[in-house]
């Protein structure tokens, strides 16, 4: 069996890719995609720790399922917001959506 550190390195790489996406892409939908990557990197961590820790202790798996559910809900709300913004301002570019400044 591969050691735990492999999984952790993989998850960290995935998380960094997601983070880079969130910070560098201009399209709001792409930012949401990046967020999804970050969430799933966390899920890999949870699953790995469950598997390498006490298998009978189900918290890791349960937590991963909860993260899935939250991610799904977040994407649903996020896409709805993007569509709404697009309808009003005719753009999905994050830099142009700056209504919340002083």
């Amino acid at each position: 069996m591969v050691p735990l550190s492999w999984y952790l390195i993989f998850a960290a790489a995935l998380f960094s890719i997601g983070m880079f996406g969130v910070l560098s892409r201009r399209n709001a939908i792409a930012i949401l995609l990046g967020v999804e990557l970050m969430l799933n990197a966390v899920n890999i961590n949870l699953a790995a720790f469950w598997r390498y820790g006490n298998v009978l202790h189900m918290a890791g798996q349960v937590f991963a399922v909860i993260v899935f559910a939250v991610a799904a809900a977040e994407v649903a709300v996020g896409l709805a917001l993007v569509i709404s913004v697009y309808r009003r301002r005719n753009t999905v570019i994050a830099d142009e959506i700056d209504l919340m400044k002083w």
Partner: protein
Amino acid sequence: METTTLIWLIPLPPVLAFFLIVLFTNKSKALSHTIGVGAAALSFIGSMVVFVRALGAEHLGEHPFESAVNWLPTGDTWFRIGVLIDPLGAAVLFFVAITIFMIFLYSVGYHNYGQPAGDHDRAGLPPHGATVEEHGHKHVVPSVEPMYSRFFAFLGLFAFGMYVLVVSDNLLTMFVGWEIMGLCSYLLIGFWYGKPSARDAAVKAFMTTRIGDVFMLLGIAYLYSATGTLTFREIFTEETLHMLAEHTTFFGMSVSGFIALLLFIGTIGKSAQFPLHVWLPDAMEGPTPVSAMIHAATMVSAGVYAVIRMFPLLTADFNGHELTTTMTIVAFIGAFTALFAATIAVAQNDIKRVLAYSTISQLGYMIAALGIGAYVAAAFHLITHAFFKALLFLGSGSVIHGMEHGVLHTGNHNVDPQDMYNMGGLRKKMPITFWTFLIGGFALSGFPLITAGFWSKDEILADAFGHGHMAVFITLAVAAFLTAFYTMRQITLTFLGEPRTKEAEHAQETPWTMTVPLMVLSFFALTYGWVGIPEHFPLLGGLVPNWFHDFVGHTLHELPEAPEFSWIPLLTSLVVALGGLTLGYFVYRNVQSVSDDKLQIPLLKNKYYFDEIYDFAFVKPAYWFAENVVYKFMDQRVIDGILHIFGPVTDKLGSAIRNYFDLPVINRFFGDGSAEITYWFGGKLRVIQTGRVQQYLMLALVTFIIGVALYFFALS
């Protein structure tokens, strides 16, 4: 009902009547007097039941009716209060209940119940009469007292105080009753508060008795600190009395003697003894004569009762022959007061004032008797005196009431209905009043054999003679002579001869509510003496057992022995009584006006100038002190001066704090400063709020990385 329970209940009805009348029924005169008289009747019945049971009880002296409850925690022990009826208490309760009930009944008639309201009567002034129209012509009739209900309320509270005093088993509750009576006396003397003289008399009575009460309270406190108890039967045990008699205190007196002296000063105030006698004659300003009777026949007896109660303490260090310091003082004050007040009474013309001085004199008799150790004689005279003096006061009230009727008839309000020189010949107009007054007067003079006053006064004289106190004996004999003399003077001027004014011609007999109490009291004024006939009295002695001596004497641990019979005191009292009466009749038989009266000596007329002396010695200095020292120096200079400093100083201090602390530090620095700093900071910081999500996240990431880096650097 248990006797002790009944004793607890005796004082209650009058005080309930007081609250009922004051709070609810004062609008209704009929309801108020029904409650008042009913309450007095209830207490009267209760007292009689207790008295009868006390008569039937075996060895009441050793085993009195008593009951006590824990009242006040004093450290590990309790201060107990309770009720006690021993033979003395029972005898006193008997006369107190009767006289109080009679006062209530008499008040109904005296305040003209059932008469119309006055034409222009005002609360706080005596009623002036009402005009009624009958058969086409107008005439004036007496009008009802405007504050009728209030009077019964006060009487109820007064009765409560007296009953509490009598049934108490300890000095403290006795003192409470004593003070309640002091308050009621103030309220009743000042009942017609519209009259300045009544107001002054009320204040005078209150202040004068207060002097005595302060000393009495000191005595109670000393007694409590010396013995740790105020219950009579605990104080009067052999050991306690012995302990108190052994130790000496100030002026080389024994502790018991000193305490007895302090308590006796309370009695001097309450029983109007020299030198605190000045309030009692002025107390006659109260509603004639009901309050007069309260002050003169009932309440002042409380003072003598207190001394009789404390008699074991008074005589704790008495060896039976030589009087102790305290007893000498008591005997001296009593005998002196007896003579001194009697001489004043000779020259007074106001029918009530004569009786007031007579009361002072007779109370002096009792005090003198106690001073020479004549315990039973003093108690005996206390009770007979209460009966005949109550009778005389109610009789004088009846006379005044009759005279007021005459004054209303003629309409001449310049005639003083209390001046005996305006009377004369009233025996035909007011026969019941005359005969009862005669009985009372003869009892006061000590008319031999048939009156109560003779037996009690004779016993005091016999006691003084028998134990060799000749000074006291002679003083009291002279006082007795004067008593008989001024009593006959009063009777002659008031009732005998022909009417001297038109008002006296039109005087009328008073209603039954007033005459019935007179008749009841005259019965006792005659017969009560027969319960105390000495055993060795010639002829009569032994026919009736000397019940009073046996009964009341057993209150003490040892039955006091009755004095040996001797002819000298007996003949003395016969001679002074009959001589005084005869002389009084012959001197005043033909006197027609004040100018014919040879005894109107200014010194006596003005009561030895005591009011003037006190005015000069105490009242004027007090006013001077109040005006110059307290008001002008203390108040205006010192107190106001301090206050005047306070004002500017606090003003300066306040503005200094405002200018140098509040304005610059609090307002400028903390108040305005914090707002400015926040504003400036906000202005600098707002540029980072761009509204761009990715910048925020970037910022968070950079901050996180810096934080982590610092954390690791700090660790290493």
